[in-house]
């Protein structure tokens, strides 16, 4: 039996998609708040001209978190002509006139967005606010009390980034299958991160960083029948990530990680990250590469799955030995056995 079957089971267990019921509930909450945002921004003089979902849900790379939490990234866009020079103003409007009125005690203005937590529903919504000038977007950067030097409308390209991640024009032959394999690989890597790093470090290994690195290093793999081989694809992609130049060696076997956004503002996704984060990321990625190679070399299906469960956690299936008559060597008999007559009561 092919290992791909188990990867598919694992993928089904961890993926979060727009069609999932749990996500639909989250979206209803989100829609309701977004409607209030529209009203509040209209009253404030900078009406919302568009809103859209950004982030992993929009690029088909979202996973269910082990904690059960959901994240939604809801971009709110206002027209440049109406936007206040002080980019923090609309963030305060969103926070005070919408979220706090709705009873969010913990609505927060963070540097790139405003966040709201539905604690009872494990739902976490981020609202990045953009102003739009023609086709150009600028993101409101700054915390609540940021002075002029610490706040700005910063060039951004949220739609371009999404298109870049979903782009399949460079894939030769069965491009859709390759994009689908890429989506699988990103989800595997994100679950691996959640599994292998402490919560604090995992939070610093940003999903967008993993996604960009995997996209740039993606090495698709399909067998001669055109069926995906996610194990080989993941191994070669991880190997490429290790030598791509994201990890810069520092003194004492330490590493600094950096990866740049492929779109505006072209910033380092890991800007400000510590050598501890970089070193752990690099070393654990290297261990992952070794484990994947072990899994490829292992011939026994159950042993293969055990190695992969060690890497990805309990959502990776390990078949029961006795459930698996097809892979066990069977005794061969010299005769079929005698039925004769039988009776019972």
């Amino acid at each position, binding site marked *: 039996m092919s290992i791909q079957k188990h990867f598919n089971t694992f993928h089904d267990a961890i993926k979060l998609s727009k069609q999932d019921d749990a996500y639909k509930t989250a979206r209803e909450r989100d829609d309701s708040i977004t409607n209030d945002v529209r009203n509040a921004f209209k009253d404030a003089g900078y009406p919302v001209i568009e809103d859209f979902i950004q982030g992993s849900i929009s690029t088909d790379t979202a996973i269910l978190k082990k904690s059960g939490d959901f994240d939604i990234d809801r971009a709110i866009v206002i027209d440049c002509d109406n936007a206040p020079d002080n980019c923090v103003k609309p963030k305060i409007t969103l926070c005070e006139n919408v979220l706090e009125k709705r009873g969010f005690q913990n609505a927060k203005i963070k540097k790139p967005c405003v966040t709201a937590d539905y604690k009872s529903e494990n739902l976490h919504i981020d609202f990045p606010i953009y102003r739009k000038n023609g086709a150009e977007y600028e993101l409101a950067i700054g915390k609540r009390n940021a002075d002029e030097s610490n706040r700005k409308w910063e060039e951004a390209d949220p739609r371009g980034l999404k298109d870049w991640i979903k782009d399949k024009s460079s894939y030769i032959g069965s491009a859709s299958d390759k994009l689908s394999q890429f989506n699988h690989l990103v989800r595997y890597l994100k679950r691996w991160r959640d599994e292998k790093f402490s919560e604090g470090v995992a939070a610093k290994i940003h999903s967008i960083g993993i996604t960009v690195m995997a996209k740039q290093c993606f090495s698709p793999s399909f067998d001669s029948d055109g069926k995906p081989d996610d194990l080989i694809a993941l191994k070669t992609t991880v190997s490429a990530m290790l030598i791509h130049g994201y990890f810069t060696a520092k003194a004492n076997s330490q590493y600094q990680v950096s990866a740049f956004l492929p779109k505006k503002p072209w910033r380092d996704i890991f800007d400000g990250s510590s050598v501890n984060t970089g070193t752990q990321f690099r070393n654990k990625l290297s261990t992952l590469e070794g484990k994947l190679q072990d899994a490829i070399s292992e011939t026994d299906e159950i042993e293969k799955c055990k190695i992969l469960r060690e890497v990805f956690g309990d959502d990776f299936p390990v078949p029961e*030995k*006795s459930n698996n*008559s097809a892979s066990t060597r069977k005794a061969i*008999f010299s005769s*079929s*056995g005698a*039925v004769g007559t039988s*009776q019972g009561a």
Partner: protein
Amino acid sequence: MGDENAIFKNGGISLNISKDALAVWKNHRQINAKDHEKFGVIIGSCSEIKDEYWVESITTPFPNDRSTRYSFLLRDRNHQKAVDLAFVESGGTSIYLGTWHTHPELIPTPSLIDKMDWLSCIGKNPGRQLFFVIVGTKEIRVFVRTSFGFTKLIMES
């Protein structure tokens, strides 16, 4: 019963029963007052070291068999033919693994006639591990012969 495979164990032996076989047993339970006993043979395979067995298919009554509500007589040659066919098609791994029949009781226990018959089956197949299944209206019981007589296998939950 019937949604997925079931594994029964006793000592060093396990018997894995396919969900298809479980579904047939479920459908043949003697639920109604007029239902006759149902029965057949068990066909399956085992691992090289003979610690794991798999029920791959089962037969059900054929025209020349006989049964009442409380007894059955398995004598139709089609049971043997089914076993022989499976044996050939599997390249020698699928064999006769025993018999099954129903009882109109919740948790079935073998009668003396059942045990005598099972001993006769074992006698006809020296050196082979056989399994005997009784399908009650609530539970399925699997028995094997041990040095203590016939012992039931424990279903893994």
